[in-house]
């Protein structure tokens, strides 16, 4: 039986999310998350293993292979991108999430790039790295890898957050920001990926 791409991607995305959170991937957990019977999940695991996306030992552990992780990460990235895109254009967050779940599978790599470009050109979006000392900005969007995004988010740089540039520096050095009452230093490369709307 042919494997539908959408179904496959949904599995890999869910597993990747779990892995990111540091949770164990088990048949039961995945079944609960996707509202599917555990029997069909283990059936699916076998298929995924045949294709080289996971390593699966029944009743023991499931691990994503490099290939599987790549697809999972890409779908998650597209999910967030679509979500952000819709939200920036006024769709309510819950609705944006639902839409993103459906749309994420249809977004090609070329479309992903186009969405990103569109976001960068919206409103007064400009990279955080271009702000001057003392300027304030509201975070609109973060470009780039899911992993880096999550780190940035956990330290408080989430969408809608207002940041103030405390110090810029020379020689390609980091900039330091006031975020949620604490001072955070971020490298140039990362500051170029964070798009903000200047508010002051």
């Amino acid at each position, binding site marked *: 039986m042919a494997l539908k791409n959408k179904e496959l991607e949904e599995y890999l995305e869910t597993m990747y999310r779990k892995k990111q959170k*540091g949770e164990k991937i088990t048949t039961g957990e995945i079944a609960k998350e996707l509202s599917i019977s555990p029997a069909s999940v283990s059936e699916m695991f076998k298929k995924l293993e045949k294709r080289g996306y996971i390593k699966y030992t029944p009743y023991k552990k499931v691990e994503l292979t490099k290939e599987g992780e790549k697809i999972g990460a890409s779908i998650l990235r597209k999910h967030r991108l679509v979500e952000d895109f819709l939200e920036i254009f006024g769709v309510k967050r819950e609705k944006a999430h639902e839409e993103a779940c459906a749309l994420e599978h249809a977004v090609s790599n070329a479309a992903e790039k186009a969405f990103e470009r569109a976001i960068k050109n919206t409103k007064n979006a400009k990279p955080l790295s271009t702000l001057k000392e003392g300027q304030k900005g509201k975070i609109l969007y973060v470009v780039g890898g899911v992993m880096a995004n999550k780190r940035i988010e956990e330290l*408080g740089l989430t969408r809608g957050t207002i940041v103030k540039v405390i110090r810029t520096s020379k020689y*390609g050095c980091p900039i330091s920001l006031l975020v949620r009452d*604490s001072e955070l*230093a971020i490298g140039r*490369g990362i500051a170029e990926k964070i798009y903000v709307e200047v508010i002051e």
Partner: protein
Amino acid sequence: MNGPVIKMNPLVVALAGNPNVGKSVVFNQLTGESQHVGNWPGKTVEKFEGKLNFLGREIKIIDLPGTYSLSAFSQEEEIARDFIKKEKPDVVIDIVDAASLEQNLFLTLQLLELDVNVVIALNMIDVAKEKGREIDAKMLSRLLGVPVVPTIATQGKGIENLMIQTINVADQKRVKKRFPKNATKRYEYIHRIVERCQKETAVGPTLTERLDGILLHKYSGYLFLVMILLLMFFLIFQLGDATSGYIEQIVDYFRQNIPPEISSNALFLFFWRTIVEGVVAGLTVAIPYLIPFYIFLAILEDSGYLPRIAFLTDGLMHKIGLHGKAFIPMFLGYGCSVPACLGCRIMESEDQQFLTAFLATMIPCAARSVIILGVVGAFLGFQWAAGIYLFNILVIFLLGFVLSKFIITKPVGLIMNMPSYKIPNIPSILRRALLQVKQYIFIAFPIIILSTFVINTLDFFGLLRYISGFLSPITVGLLGLPSIIGITLIVGFLRKELAIVLLAALLGTENFSEVLTPLQMIVFTVVSIFYIPCAATIATLVKEFGWKKAAFVTVFEIIFAIAIGAIALRVLPVFGLS
């Protein structure tokens, strides 16, 4: 049975919190002298444990690694999360920086989502006040549903109350909470909590802001950085020089006063020499140079200057595919290469960890500094020794530039918190420095003694000279050194600091200027610095990166060092050195 029933098993209390919130100060306050260090099972992260008796209860305190979250991104986060989930401590004390409450509560919410009792220590309320922030602890406690105790750990304030609350909740069963999953929503939720319990008044620039104005300034920042590091090295070498003289006297005493019952037996004498020489040679590095080094390092760390160094050097480190945080393990390399390799874990990607460790092994550790100072410094003068250090930095930078093109596939940028400056707490600094030296002794000493054994055995059978003859095409032909020096290069593989002792023994004099030309001294020193990490470092590289990468580093560095030595021999005479 009459009277109260006393629970016999001790309470297990874990300390959690972000980095730089004063967690180790709280730990020291609670446990005092009763602490001990181990490693987390299967990990190289240090595990601090201690004991305390309070209100008739025996309490075991475990200091979890400082983390911003429990997502298991890094080894530290994984350790903290697994400990709470699997070992199920009776209480987790979450230490929160009152001056940056919003960011700290991210971890707090993750803790509240777990099946564990939580008490919050609202620490550094004095610093928060300086920044114009006042927090209503009662309100915060009501909003989060767990006790909140204001503390100033550095002054011991609130610690007793913290423990009372800890014991109070220890036998309860808290119902775990659920918060928004998405990070954006979660921070919005936290923001609302903070708005309800924090009062802000405008204040002038804080001391940290004013200091950063100078210390992170585009120009003066670098001036201070160079001055601070130079001063530090100057003091370390001054202190080292002064103490190593005394230690040498003790060494001589042990060398000359061998108990008669040992000296009469050839085998006993062999082992006596091996152990005494091994321990003594290890100590001559550890005491004079490593102790002051780790004390200064702890001062840099505790004062909050270390992240500033990472900030200032970030641009430079980017040129070699790394970022500012890589400065810290590289800097550790000046002490001992083993902790330097372990310290590379602070880098986010595996590529970056490997490159940082690779370069850090080429930084002259305390043992190699002994060679630089004992040969070049002593006979050619301070400026030549300083020149070798500078040359070393330059070479490492150029090499890093080239290697990064092959090793780094995806550079990860710098993200780090900038803590406020603090006045370092002296007892905690001394304790940490001594712990680090103790660890050096545990890791390095067995290898040192084993290596001395191997060397003495080779010597006993007359194999050393045979090997040095075998190496003479390299030592004599390429490097222009006396053939006998081949032995010190082999010994240097096992033990760097012994190379100089052996050099003196083989050449028959401690006055190297009698037998070596200045050019030969420079070539010998340069080769010794670069040519191979010692056995303990290789073992660490194998453990961290696998034997293939460790073998690559080792072979690369041998060839690289010989090449640099050979070039130096041929280029330096142009500048008038012979």
